[in-house]
């Protein structure tokens, strides 16, 4: 057991699964020799060779499309989209093929593959480097969408994603790649896909978040000690663990969903719909969303307005708690 960052935890998950199974291969733009622009795959090519860990031409459709063929022919590809904003040239492959091969062939073929993509803002980046595109992937039947928020979960979810018989889009909160360390077991373990994590139990309000925003929620609660909040880290956006959400809302009656993805038609809208369908009579206040604005993520000089800070979250929590029917 040692203290590791999210980045190190993902690297370790890739390393240990590759060591265990020679059918696992890792590739994408700059992931081989350099080890990725964030160094998430550092050292893997040196250890496993250029056939299993390699750099590709800048061609996202080829990266994902070739992974389809590899998975059909017995490999387990783990491919990287350098940033989620650049996954869109591969979107055709992901939506029209990756998500559908099992159904299209009535189970003759299935695609055990992982599409990794750093996502989210807060790193003062150029255009297209800060997007939160959860909705684009969670909306597609046949895909799973996983987002870790801690080093422990990052390793366990990555191993579970690699072992999963279905394709998994694995979004990595790049803002907190190296933000903090946590004790991570040295051995291999899985964190189950499709199960949310109750970060903190409470009775007053349910706060649902994922990725980099889980920590921001925790910070917000430090400045609102008067509120006994239950915090849920969703971890898997799709398929969603509505059981954990509904059980919590039935207890608290109040809900705040925090995500950086833009508001309209975003994941928060889906979560609130589920709550309305399954826990309507338990609600004591209208469920609310604190999300990215419905705009293009601003460049760094405007980005601070877009990034959700703990004070904002605390403010929303207080508003919801103040509501009396």
């Amino acid at each position, binding site marked *: 057991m040692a203290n590791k960052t999210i980045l190190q935890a993902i690297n370790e998950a890739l390393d240990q699964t590759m060591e265990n199974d020679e059918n696992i291969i890792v590739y994408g733009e700059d992931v081989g020799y350099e080890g990725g622009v964030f160094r998430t795959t550092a050292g893997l090519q040196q250890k496993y060779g250029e056939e299993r860990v390699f750099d590709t031409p800048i061609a996202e*459709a080829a990266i994902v*499309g070739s992974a*389809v*063929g*590899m998975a059909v022919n017995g490999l387990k590809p783990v491919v990287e989209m350098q940033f989620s904003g650049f996954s869109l040239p591969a979107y055709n492959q992901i939506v029209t093929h990756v998500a559908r091969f099992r159904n299209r062939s*009535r189970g003759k073929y299935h695609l055990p593959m992982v599409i990794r993509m750093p996502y989210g803002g807060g790193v003062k980046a150029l255009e297209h480097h800060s997007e939160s595109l959860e909705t684009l992937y969670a909306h597609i039947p046949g895909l799973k969408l996983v987002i870790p928020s801690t080093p422990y979960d990052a390793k366990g979810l990555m191993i579970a994603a690699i072992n999963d018989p*279905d394709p998994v889009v694995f979004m990595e909160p790049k803002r907190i790649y190296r933000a903090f360390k946590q004790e991570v077991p040295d051995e291999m373990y899985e964190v189950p896909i499709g199960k949310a994590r109750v970060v903190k139990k409470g009775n007053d309000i349910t706060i649902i978040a994922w990725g980099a925003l889980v920590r921001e929620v925790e910070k917000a609660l430090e400045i609102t000690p008067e509120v006994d909040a239950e915090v849920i880290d969703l971890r898997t956006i799709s398929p969603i663990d509505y059981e954990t959400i509904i059980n919590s809302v039935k207890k608290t009656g109040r809900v705040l969903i925090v995500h950086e993805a833009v508001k309209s038609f975003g994941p928060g809208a889906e979560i609130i719909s589920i709550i309305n369908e399954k826990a309507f009579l338990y609600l004591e206040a209208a469920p609310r969303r604190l999300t990215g604005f419905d705009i293009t993520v601003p460049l760094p000089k405007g980005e601070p307005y877009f990034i959700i800070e703990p004070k904002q979250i605390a403010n929303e929590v207080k508003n919801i708690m103040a509501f009396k029917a």
Partner: protein
Amino acid sequence: MLFDNYDPLKEQMLQILDHNGKIVNDKLEPNIKKETLIKMYETMILGRTSDEKALQFQRQGRMLTYAPNIGQEAAQVGPMAALEPQDWLVLAFREFNAMLYKGVTLEQAFLYWYGNERGSKYDDDVKVLPINVPIGSQINHAAGVAYASKLKKLDEVSIVFIGDGGTSHGEFHEGMNFAATFELPMITVIQNNHYAISTPRRKATKAKTLAQKAIAYGIPGIQVDGNDPLAMYLVVKEARERAIKGLGPTLIEAVTYRIGPHTTSDNPKLYREDSEVEEWIKKDPIIRFKKYLIDKKIWTEKKDEELHEKTKKFVLDTFKHVEESGNVELEEIFNYTYEKMTPNLIEQMNNYKDYLAKEGENNGE
């Protein structure tokens, strides 16, 4: 090497068997086993008959939208005959003959066009990927299959078909470049049937040939008479040898023609002259191949009649069987989204079952 002798920039097209069924290039006549020649011919007749019947069924309201292959049989069967059983076939959607040659059953092939996903569940040992509708995207799949073959040092190649229209697509470029860069055992056959629905090839690219696109990828490209089964066989045979030796992919442009419509929803009279179609009917691959087989004393008119009779009956019987298969069960449309149904899917399915139990069957009307 064959590929060095036919320069796509000079529009040099390989032909061995001309449209009269005469060998015009006897040094290159491939030595194909008698059984293989007969299997090639029988598959072409099965493909042609199936297309003709499917068009009829569609007009009778018994078949959904259908994309016929008439005129393109040699461009599909020639390549498949040159491959080995362990090789992979990656499809677009106008490769009915290639699928049949490779072991997809006629029932499965019809079932797909009849509107049932089970038609894409080929038998376990049939190494064929399902029909791929989004234009051009299958090249990358073939590259991936070939990457796995190479990594695992398997003695197998992937053949991938695409239309002339598909070569305009970005994924054609990405896939060809990927396969060439990693020297993958892949063979790309462009069925240049001259039309992307209504858009003629000349309006889709400034390039004189599609084969010359290979030059930019640093791989061999060759233009072949796609209605000549012997030329298509030979060129794929050599492409396979290169691939197995680790020399990488080959780009083959099969110059052919779509005698029928793009699909049954299309009216080709709107965008091409009958005289053009008539010129191509004279170049029919089946007519020339039959002459060749008869000249070789492998085939007779009598056998031909018997084959047509037998095939017609087989096609009619098979289609009847497909028609009797009916709709799929409700569970089936949910079952294959993931390995295990998610709680969400189970709930959606059960709610709908409850509705059906209360309100009776939903016929989608």
